[in-house]
């Protein structure tokens, strides 16, 4: 009699590695305009299909089609295009500044600009985002001064955070941007707690939580879903699926299940997937989810399907773990070009005006950068005072810290 068959261990891997031909054939893409738009008060169990399709508005001919189209004016779309272009230019300059040794670290948004820029425009003043390090578009589209962003990156004398935080871990209560943590997923449950507080106080503000595909493996992602579901918190829970968690492909966090959005279904949370490279689609879905939260109908989970074209950070080298041409093969295209082409198609924009805008934006960003660098960079001060290092650990400095500050001679 033979013994039991030996078991075998399974580790999922991406379709291709460097040297192979980029392959996204396993990514099912819905046609633009194809996915239905339910009423905002639809029961979660009636819209389960939306966790498996992809809501898209812009088609291959740069037309806005289907039930999620028609929500934004030309002026609003032009503003959105400018936000995305600004973020891209800002990224390029700050990436270069890091390479020039002006700061220690930078994380860019290349390819993902639509997600945060479009989402921000669906929020109202007073709403609070609990972002990751890749949602600077929330700040740019929300009117946060770029000078403050750069000074934070340079840890210079005007750094609003006094040199205490890694570059790009911004914080602005006034602009609805919760202080970013380097520990992953912690902010997700905090977003839910903030939203619960708003409901407990009978307020009208809502929260938005943000997480990357890789971090959905963290326990706090699940804590966030449990609490959001239990207390029907007025929160929009975003997952930005940009395919890569540093070098780890999204299947490691997702396992064999259908989609990240489907994670919400077990919690009874309405879950939608959206083309994260389609400004119009992201905005439309965000508006739907925000409207739902605002009407006290509870949380919504949104999976933004996108692609991280750039490296994870300035410390990363994606050529080691994925084909160089993979970003070009990404089937959902480039968010800036897609919106540009749509506006041209609408007659509201032109290639010439686009080139002019690129030049204007670059010149503005460079001017702000010069101003920021006038206040110091990481390795060539002026910096916040070492005395500041001891402030703000507690509301009032306790005696032991005061003694240490004196010992430090500051």
């Amino acid at each position, binding site marked *: 009699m033979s013994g039991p068959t030996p078991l075998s261990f399974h580790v999922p891997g991406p379709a291709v590695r460097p040297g192979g031909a980029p392959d996204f054939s396993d990514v099912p893409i819905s046609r633009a305009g194809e996915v239905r738009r339910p009423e905002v008060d639809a029961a979660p169990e009636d819209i389960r299909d939306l966790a498996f399709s992809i809501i898209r508005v812009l088609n291959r001919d740069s037309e806005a089609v289907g039930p999620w189209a028609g929500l934004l004016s030309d002026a609003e779309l032009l503003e959105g295009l400018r936000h995305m272009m600004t973020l891209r230019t800002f990224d390029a300059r700050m990436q270069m500044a890091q390479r020039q040794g002006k700061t220690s670290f930078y994380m860019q948004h290349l390819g993902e600009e639509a997600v945060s820029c479009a989402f921000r425009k669906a929020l109202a003043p007073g709403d*609070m985002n*609990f972002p990751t390090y890749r949602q600077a578009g929330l700040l740019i589209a929300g009117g946060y001064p770029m000078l403050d962003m750069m000074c934070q990156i340079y840890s210079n004398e005007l750094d*609003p*955070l*006094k040199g*205490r*935080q890694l570059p790009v*871990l911004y*914080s*602005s*209560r*006034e602009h609805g941007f*919760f*202080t970013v*943590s380097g*520990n992953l997923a*912690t902010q*997700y*449950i*905090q*977003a*839910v*707690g*903030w*939203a*619960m*507080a*708003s*409901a*407990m*106080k009978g307020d009208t503000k809502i*929260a938005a939580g943000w997480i990357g595909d890789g971090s959905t493996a963290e*326990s*706090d992602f699940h*804590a*966030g879903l*449990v*609490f959001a579901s*239990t207390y029907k918190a007025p929160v929009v829970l975003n997952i930005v699926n940009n395919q890569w968690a540093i070098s780890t492909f999204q299947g490691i966090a997702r396992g064999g299940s259908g989609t990240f959005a489907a994670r919400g279904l077990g919690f009874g949370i309405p879950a939608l997937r959206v083309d994260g490279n389609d400004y119009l689609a992201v905005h439309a879905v965000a508006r739907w989810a925000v409207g739902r939260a605002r009407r006290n109908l509870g949380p919504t989970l949104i999976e933004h399907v996108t692609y991280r074209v750039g490296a994870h950070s300035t410390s990363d080298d994606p050529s080691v773990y994925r084909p160089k041409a993979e970003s070009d093969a990404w089937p959902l295209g480039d968010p800036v070009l897609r919106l540009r082409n749509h506006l041209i198609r609408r007659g509201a924009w032109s290639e010439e005006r686009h080139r002019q805008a690129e030049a204007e934006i670059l010149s503005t960003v460079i001017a702000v950068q010069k101003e920021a660098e006038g206040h110091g960079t990481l390795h060539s001060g002026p910096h916040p005072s070492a005395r500041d290092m001891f402030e*703000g*650990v*507690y*509301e009032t400095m*306790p*005696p*032991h810290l005061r003694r240490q500050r004196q010992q430090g001679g500051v």
Partner: protein
Amino acid sequence: MARKTMVEAIRDAMDVCMQRDDNVVVFGEDVGYFGGVFRCTQGLQQKYGESRCFDAPINESGIVGAAVGMAAYGLRPCIEIQFADYMYPAYDQIVSEAARLRYRSNGQFTAAMVVRMPTGGGIFGGQTHSQSPEALFTHVSGLKTVVPCNPYDAKGLLIAAIEDNDPVIFLEPKRLYNGPFDGQHDKPVTPWARHALGEVPDGHYTVPLGKAAIRRAGAAVTVLAYGTMVFVAETAAEQAGVDAEIVDLRSLVPYDLETIAASVAKTGRCVVVHEATLTSGFGAELSALVQENCFYHLEAPVMRVAGWDTPYPHAQEWDYFPGPARVARALKAVMEA
């Protein structure tokens, strides 16, 4: 003045704060309808409604993380972790998040919140219901850590903690919930109702964070203790026949160096007692502080009495527990050194 148990005093503190400030909210596992497994929150939901006091899912990271979000909004959560032993899943939220919000946001976001948790052994709780993790908190910049030893302090310190604008870890020695405990485990617990320290004023009062109390004046040796060990030290001093001065720290961070140093300068000897494991325990910090600040007054090395460096055993609980006999031996040893 009413005599109350520590449980009643703690409940009273939350009641007073909830009455005075609509932003104070209480939640955690079993704390709503049931009133908490130790009944510390009993009646609060009935009095203040479900949006002020409610049950939470069994997810400690979720409880603390949600509280951080609420505090960032402007509420003042006073949350319960059912046993201090269960706080490990929430440790990241406490240490990396609550403790640092003020610092990393330059004051734009703060976490004015209290994390209450029953701590310590002596109830045959085994490895998962007996731990004293205070050193895991005192090591963290941005947190305050408080351990009361009687109902009066428990109420006053908890009100001060809830009103404090920094995150406070409030460790409740569960062996003291119903009365003082002298370390004689085969004797019945003396109820607070028959103990002077059980007197608790009605209404609002505070015991300031960062101020120690002299529980027993003495001239021969200083005992630094907190929580349950304050009473164990008293019994040990009597057993050893040593004129010990017992300093109850009450708040570990911030700590009251002034009172500690003044006492050791007076007595010239020091024994540090805590229930947590010895190595890298808070006693090591106290010992170093005494050495740094009182070296020229010392007539003997500082000694530490603590739990052994093992997990808290179930059946051998009383061999693990730093009882009066061990403390008395240390007192005699420093007197003879």
